[in-house]
């Protein structure tokens, strides 16, 4: 068996080495995606185009506006003179947020009453709107705290001192809530899955299309020898991917790695076994490379969305949550993020590792069983 397997592997690596386009496909998209995700994939909101209608024209209203300008979150693009102008700004996409300070704003503040502040938000992009509103309320509460403090120091008895609950957030593992730290480990898993599944599937289907698969199957080779020969190279390539992208994330984006590299190694092995199993399974359902491509495209998108890469699984409806259970990426993302940022080990991650092992076992077994049948 060792003889035939080494013959298969030798052949596979000659073919890989000779395929210039393949080398390009292996390396370049990884870096492009890494850069794209590293720099562009962010939920942070900066420089929101903002229109302001100040009907109070007081020292207090001007002070509030300067608070907005002081952060880089909001750019004031229009000092409007009336409500119509505000509406037009929002409709014509000149502004995403409009702040209306009504007449009597400062009077209310001076006399210790709650001063209403009107905010209009373009809800088309609900995500941006939500985040901008968050910043807005942060800035206004900061403003009112300052106002209260000043009032106390001036001994204006009408103003009550701040009471109630004050939030003192202390994020663990990622104190700065740096999104890149969240995304980069996710990108490693996602890109690797994408690449390993499609490469494995295409490699098998190509042999089917050319007829070499049939030629090999009339030889005394055993199915598992062929399958190992066809998967081990992509398993190794997957490791290369993970190592490369991890190095890039650590050195270029300075993502911390506080965990045990051995846990990472083990988790990656199980994950890659599941990925080549998935590719192999996919190949047993495809006669041509075109079919494999279509199937690949059709499947990987849901696997990506339903992985917890960007959208929290807990917020998904129950039936989609069930689906995520067969998604190896879901488990690997937990493992890889935990290893990078939390530094926890097998004692915590064993359910994910076990799930990955089970998925790998099932997918490889089913594809080996289906393999002979798929020749017909």
């Amino acid at each position, binding site marked *: 068996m060792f003889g035939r397997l080494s013959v*298969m592997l030798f052949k596979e690596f000659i073919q890989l080495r000779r395929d210039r386009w393949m080398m390009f496909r292996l390396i370049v998209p990884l870096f492009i995606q890494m850069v794209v995700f590293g720099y562009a994939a962010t939920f942070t909101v900066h420089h929101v185009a903002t229109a302001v209608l100040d009907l109070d024209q007081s020292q207090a209203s001007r002070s509030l506006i300067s608070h907005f300008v002081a952060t880089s979150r909001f750019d004031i693009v229009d000092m409007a003179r009336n409500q119509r102008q505000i509406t037009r700004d929002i409709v014509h996409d000149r502004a995403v947020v409009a702040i209306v300070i009504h007449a009597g704003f400062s009077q209310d503040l001076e006399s210790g009453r709650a001063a209403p502040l009107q905010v209009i938000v373009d809800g088309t992009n609900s995500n941006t709107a939500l985040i901008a509103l968050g910043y807005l309320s942060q800035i206004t509460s900061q403003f009112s705290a300052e106002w209260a403090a000043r009032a106390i120091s001036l001994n204006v008895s009408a103003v009550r001192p701040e009471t109630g609950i004050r939030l003192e957030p202390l994020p663990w593992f990622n104190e700065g809530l740096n999104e890149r730290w969240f995304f980069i480990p996710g990108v490693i898993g996602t890109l690797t899955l994408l690449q390993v599944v499609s490469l494995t599937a295409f490699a098998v289907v190509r042999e089917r299309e050319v*007829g070499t698969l049939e030629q*090999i199957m009339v030889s*005394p080779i055993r199915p598992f020898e062929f399958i190992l020969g066809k998967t081990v190279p992509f398993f190794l390539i997957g490791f290369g991917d993970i190592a490369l992208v991890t190095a890039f994330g650590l050195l270029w984006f300075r993502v911390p790695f506080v965990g045990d590299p051995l846990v990472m190694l083990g988790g990656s092995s199980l994950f890659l076994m599941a990925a080549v199993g998935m590719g192999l399974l996919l190949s047993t359902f495809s006669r041509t490379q075109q079919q494999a491509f279509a199937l690949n495209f059709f499947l990987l998108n849901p696997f990506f969305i339903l992985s917890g890469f960007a959208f929290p699984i807990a917020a998904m409806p129950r039936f989609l949550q069930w689906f995520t259970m067969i998604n190896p990426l879901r488990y690997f993302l937990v493992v890889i993020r935990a290893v990078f940022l939390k530094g926890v080990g097998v004692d915590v991650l064993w359910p994910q590792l076990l799930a990955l092992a089970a998925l790998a076992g099932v997918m490889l077994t089913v594809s080996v069983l289906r393999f002979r049948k798929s*020749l017909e």
Partner: protein
Amino acid sequence: MSASGGPAVLAEALTKKFGDFTAVDHLDLRIERGQVIGFLGPNGAGKSTTIRMLCGLLLPTSGRASVAGFDVGREPEAVREHIGYMSQKFSLYGDLTVRENLRFFGGIYRVRREDFAERMRFAISMAGLEGRQNALVHTLAGGWKQRLALGCAILHRPPVLFLDEPTSGVEPEARRQFWDLIHDLAAEHVTILVSTHYMDEAEYCNQVALIDRGTLIAMGTPSELRGHRLSGQLYELRCSPLGGALKALRGVTGVVEAAIFGDRLHVVLAENAPAGADIRRLLSEHGIQADLPRRIMPSLEDVFVQLVSRGAEHRVTA
């Protein structure tokens, strides 16, 4: 090695169904060792399916078969060690060199190291590829690819060789060379089963099996098939237009079969058929110009045409 004695290939009531479609229907076949046997039949007759079952690529729906003394269903691995297979796709790796392809297939068949160098040299000289060992296979023309594919299929010296339409898409001269190779192999007691839809190639075979719609309709040496299978005498007739003549003759008492062969008509006449001059008169009544029919030796194609149409009639009346 292979179990001695007994036929090289034996099939009993071999059947393959794909859903409702019966590709091979209770096929019985017995091929003695050292024979070159031609599988002849139109596209879709079930030639490839039969070969693929004998190689263990397809599981029969029912029936059984043995190759080189091993049962295809129960000992598939032993069967695979004793056969060579080559299909019309000449399934080689285009991105590997000639030598790399040979080394790969030699490795898959576990040809022993001490034998390999000599067998590779043999395969390369057989394919006429001396000096081009390091050429990538996709740069080779069809005839070379075909002979290299054959070389790869016999690296392990199989006693039985299956060739599924090995000459399709190859130029006539390369086809001729290929058949010389097949006869060289047969001289070394390799049993060769080769399917083709070129009728002229059947003449190169020791035995010909005619296959139509999944059944074996006749089997014998080419001269046996030509001599005994035709019910009546074969005549050749130059006439014009051909289509009209065909219509006019069919149904005439004593005309067993009429078919167009190139620019003339082949007609099989029974004892009670009209004489040549009467046929000519009959055609001219239909406005058809014709020479006197000339008696000729039947080719395999004549036999095949008659057997296939007879089979079709049986199926209609059955």
